[in-house]
């Protein structure tokens, strides 16, 4: 079985709970204006954004092949179109993976809404700061892996769902792109028409992927 995590991950309404939590935070935390990182498109069309994320979607490609990314030689990328139950605008599902380590990212884009991805998952990389005055400082740091979404005021917010809050599960997901894809799909209510989740495969043979997670010190010389 390709997917063997905790049963609660299978519950699609999980997403709604997290989303409602995020949205509840929205209404209480709209005052901050640090650096202008507000996504105005999402702020102006928040109902549309919410519909994009919460309503069921079909991923049209069963097997997503990763190919070298044109703009960055160190990354592989693959994509699929998405069919939304109620919205006919183009929606695209992107998967990207670093060739150097196991870091990967999954994103949903809707170019007619905004140029930035509207929903993302980061397996690794820096912790995000949710710098809202109602969140105590020590809780403002959301380490990876985490989801990135938006609040009603267009401010980005990172969060972990219940699965990612469990350190062991989070680590397994961070290390396996296909677990990540399944988790991501459940989080944003997407699946294949068969009810399964898409599979990501490398076009190049897996054997080329040799770098171990983080730093390979054999490659580097320090003074």
């Amino acid at each position, binding site marked *: 079985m390709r997917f063997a995590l905790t049963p609660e991950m299978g519950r699609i309404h999980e997403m709604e709970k997290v989303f409602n939590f995020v949205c509840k935070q929205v209404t209480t935390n709209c005052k901050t204006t640090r*650096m202008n990182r507000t996504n105005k498109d999402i702020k102006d069309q928040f109902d549309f954004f919410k519909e994009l994320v919460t309503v069921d979607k079909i991923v049209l490609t069963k097997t997503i092949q990763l190919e070298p990314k044109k703009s960055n030689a160190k990354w592989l990328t693959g994509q699929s179109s998405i069919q939304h139950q109620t919205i006919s605008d183009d929606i695209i599902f992107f998967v990207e993976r670093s060739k150097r380590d196991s870091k990967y990212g999954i994103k949903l884009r809707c170019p007619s809404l905004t140029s930035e991805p509207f929903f993302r998952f980061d397996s690794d*990389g*820096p912790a995000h*700061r949710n710098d809202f005055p109602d969140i105590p400082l020590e809780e403002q*740091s959301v380490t990876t892996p985490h989801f990135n979404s938006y609040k009603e005021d267009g401010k980005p917010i990172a969060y972990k769902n219940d699965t990612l809050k469990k350190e062991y599960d989070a680590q397994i997901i961070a290390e396996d792109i296909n677990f990540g894809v399944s988790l991501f799909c459940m989080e944003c209510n997407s699946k294949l028409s068969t009810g399964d989740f898409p599979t990501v495969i490398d076009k190049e043979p897996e054997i080329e992927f040799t770098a171990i997670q*983080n*730093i390979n*010190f054999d490659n580097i010389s*320090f003074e």
Partner: protein
Amino acid sequence: MSNQEIIEKIKSSFCNLTNFKVRQNALEVITAYSTINSKFVSVFITLTNNKIVITDSGWIDQNYYETPLYDEFEFIVNRITTAFKSSFNVKSTLDKEGVEYYYKTCENLEQIPSAVFDLSNFIVGVVNAFCIQYKDEKEEKERETFRRDANDYLKVNYSDMVKLRSALDDFQSIKFNAIINKSSKLYLLTYVTGSTQTYFENDLRKSIVNFEIAVKSKYQDLIKERLTIINDKSEGYLPEKSAFIFELLKEKTTREPVKWTEKERILELI
């Protein structure tokens, strides 16, 4: 609320903000330092070659901090990086794939916190430098608006006779905002605008140089007028302060500059 309570709250919050991730061959410190694009800076501690090495794990170079790419201002960020490297005594090295690692080394446990502190501050500084849009957006916008308005005005009145952003055949690199070819005579036009005195005067200087070169063209006999249209509505238009440069311009043009608020004068001249 006592001072002591406040002190303790701040101390514990700051302290609890720091997190750790145990990696395969490094300890990641998710520091309490954050950047203006809301990323917490991570540094990586590892023991190698009998030294303790603290690196950024190539995260800056690989853009793991997801900073925007303003290519044209890379030179500014490079200067900032160099300055911070020397201030925080940070070194850098490339791995086999050419990824740049910023690092500090230390000898013993006692030195680690200080090195983590310095490298974190370094990363915050560099990442923030990448986040800034150095382009003066107000200036760009004002310039674009004026250029478009002036272009439209000429197009409406001279239609096919006007060529925008055009050069004389023998000086291809010297572009005039417009060249009008009417009754086998050429009229060279430059636009001058700017949201500050500096920007405005830069435009004036450019016009002076362009006209200076134009008189050396083999088409010199065909050039009927050399004209400058100035945006007298722009904030950088300070005729008294820029009097000296205006004088120079007058020597290179055939007429007094045309103020945008009196643009009908163009129709009398051409």
